[in-house]
C-alpha cells in the first residue's frame, strides 16, 4: 500500500511540475496577498493580535485558492474514474492528503517569510511561532483535503469551497490566531499546550475523512 501511495504522490508532483501554472498561481496568490497587506498598511504599526489575525486570514485564503486544485484537476481531466480503477479510495485519500500538506507547508513558508520581512514582525518566542504555523497549516491542509474532494464532485469551484470550509476551519483559526499573537508579544507562554489541540483536531478530521472518503469518491 505504501509504495502505491508513493507512486500516486510522485505522479501528482510530476504533473504539477510539468504544468506549473496551477502551483505557480497558488504561490503568487499567497505572495501578492501578503504584499498587498504590507503595501496597504504602509508602515502603520499593528498590535500583535492584529498581526496574528491578518497573517491567518492570508493563510486561510491561500488555502482556499490552492488546496482544492488537486481534486478538481482529476475531475476536469476526467481521470477520477481511472484513478478509482487502479487505487482504492483510501490510497487516493492518503496520497492527496500528503500532497496537500506538502503544498500548503511550502505556501506557508513563503507567506511567513514575506510577512515577517515586510511587516517587520519579530516574535518573542520564535519556536512557538514556527510550531504554530506548522501545526495550523497541517490542520488546515487535512480539513481542506476532504472538503476539496467534496467540492470537486459538486463541480462549482472555489466559492463553494470557501463557504463549506469556513465553519469547520474556525476552531483552527481561533486557536492559531491566539497562539500566534502570544508568540509575537510574549505573554502567556503556557498557551503552547494549544498546539496539541491543533494536532488532535487534525487527527480526528483525518481519521473521519479516511473512513468516509469512499462515500464521496465512489457512487454507492
Amino acid at each position, binding site marked *: 500500500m505504501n509504495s502505491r501511495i508513493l507512486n500516486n504522490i510522485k505522479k501528482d508532483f510530476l504533473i504539477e511540475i510539468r504544468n506549473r501554472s496551477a502551483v505557480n498561481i497558488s504561490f503568487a496568490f499567497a505572495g501578492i496577498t501578503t504584499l498587498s497587506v504590507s503595501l496597504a498598511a504602509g508602515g502603520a504599526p499593528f498590535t500583535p493580535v492584529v498581526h496574528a489575525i491578518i497573517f491567518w486570514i492570508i493563510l486561510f485564503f491561500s488555502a482556499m485558492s490552492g488546496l482544492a486544485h488537486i481534486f478538481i484537476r482529476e475531475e476536469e481531466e476526467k481521470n477520477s474514474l481511472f484513478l478509482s480503477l487502479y487505487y482504492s479510495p483510501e490510497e487516493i485519500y492518503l496520497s492527496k492528503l500528503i500532497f496537500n500538506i506538502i503544498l500548503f507547508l511550502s505556501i506557508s513558508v513563503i507567506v511567513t517569510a514575506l510577512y515577517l520581512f515586510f511587516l517587520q514582525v519579530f516574535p518573542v518566542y520564535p519556536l512557538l511561532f514556527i510550531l504554530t504555523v506548522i501545526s495550523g497549516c497541517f490542520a488546515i491542509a487535512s480539513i481542506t483535503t*476532504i472538503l476539496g474532494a467534496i467540492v470537486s464532485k459538486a463541480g462549482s469551484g472555489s466559492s*463553494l469551497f470557501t463557504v463549506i470550509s469556513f465553519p*469547520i476551519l474556525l476552531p483552527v483559526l481561533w486557536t492559531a490566531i491566539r497562539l500566534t499573537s502570544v508568540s509575537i508579544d510574549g505573554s502567556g507562554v503556557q498557551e503552547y499546550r494549544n498546539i496539541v489541540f491543533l494536532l488532535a483536531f487534525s487527527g480526528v478530521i483525518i481519521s*473521519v475523512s479516511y473512513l468516509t472518503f469512499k462515500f464521496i469518491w465512489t457512487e454507492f
Partner: protein
Amino acid sequence: MKSYSRLIFYFLIFAVMPGVFLRALIWTPAAEFLGESSRILYFHVPVAWISVISFVTAGYHSIMILISEKERDEREYKAYNAAYIGIIFTILTVVTGSIWAKISWGSYWNWDPRETSIVILMLIYISYFSLYSALKDNVNRMGISSVYLIIAMITMPFFVFIIPRIYPSLHPDTIINADKKIHLEAAMKLTLFTSIGVFTIFYGYIYKLMNRISSLEFTQQEKRNDN
C-alpha cells in the same frame, strides 16, 4: 389505537401549547432583575433547543445513510427536512436572543460564547444547503452531503472547548455552573420545561408532516420516471 394517539398529539399541540404560552406570558412571575422582558426565556430556550435537536437528527440520518443500506432515499429527505427546520429555528433563536440582548445587555450583538456557537451552527446549516443545491445533478448527492454533515457534527464538540476561552460569557450560568443545579424559581422552571416539552412535540409534528410531503413527492417522481 393510531387515531387515539393522534388525538393526544393534536390535543398537546392545539390546546396545551397555547396554554403554556398563556402561562408564560401571564401567570408565571417575572424574574427579579430582568423584569417583564425575562418572559422571552420561555420562547428563546425552546427554540434554541429545537435548532440543536434538528442538527442531531440530521446528523443521525446522515450516519445511517452511510452505514445501513435500508431506506436510503427516505433518510435523504429526512436529513434534509431536519436541517430545513433547523435553520429556521436557528434564525428564530438569533432573533429572539438579540432582542433580549438589546434589552438586558444594551446591544443586539455581543459575541458571547453562546451567540457565537449559534452563529456557527447557522453557518454550518447555510454551507450544507449551498452544498446540497450545488450537488443537484450528482447521483451521489446523498452520500456527499451526509459526509459533510458528519464532519460538521464532529467539529461541534471542539467549539465547546474553544469558544469559552476566547469570548467571556454574558449568559447566566443556569445550566452549566459549579453546583450543577438550575437556579430558577419553581414556577418559572415548570413553565420553562413544559414549554421545551410542547416545542419538542411541535417539532415532531412539523417534521412528520414535512416527511409525509417529501415521501408523497418521492413516490410521484418515481411513478413519473416509470412512465
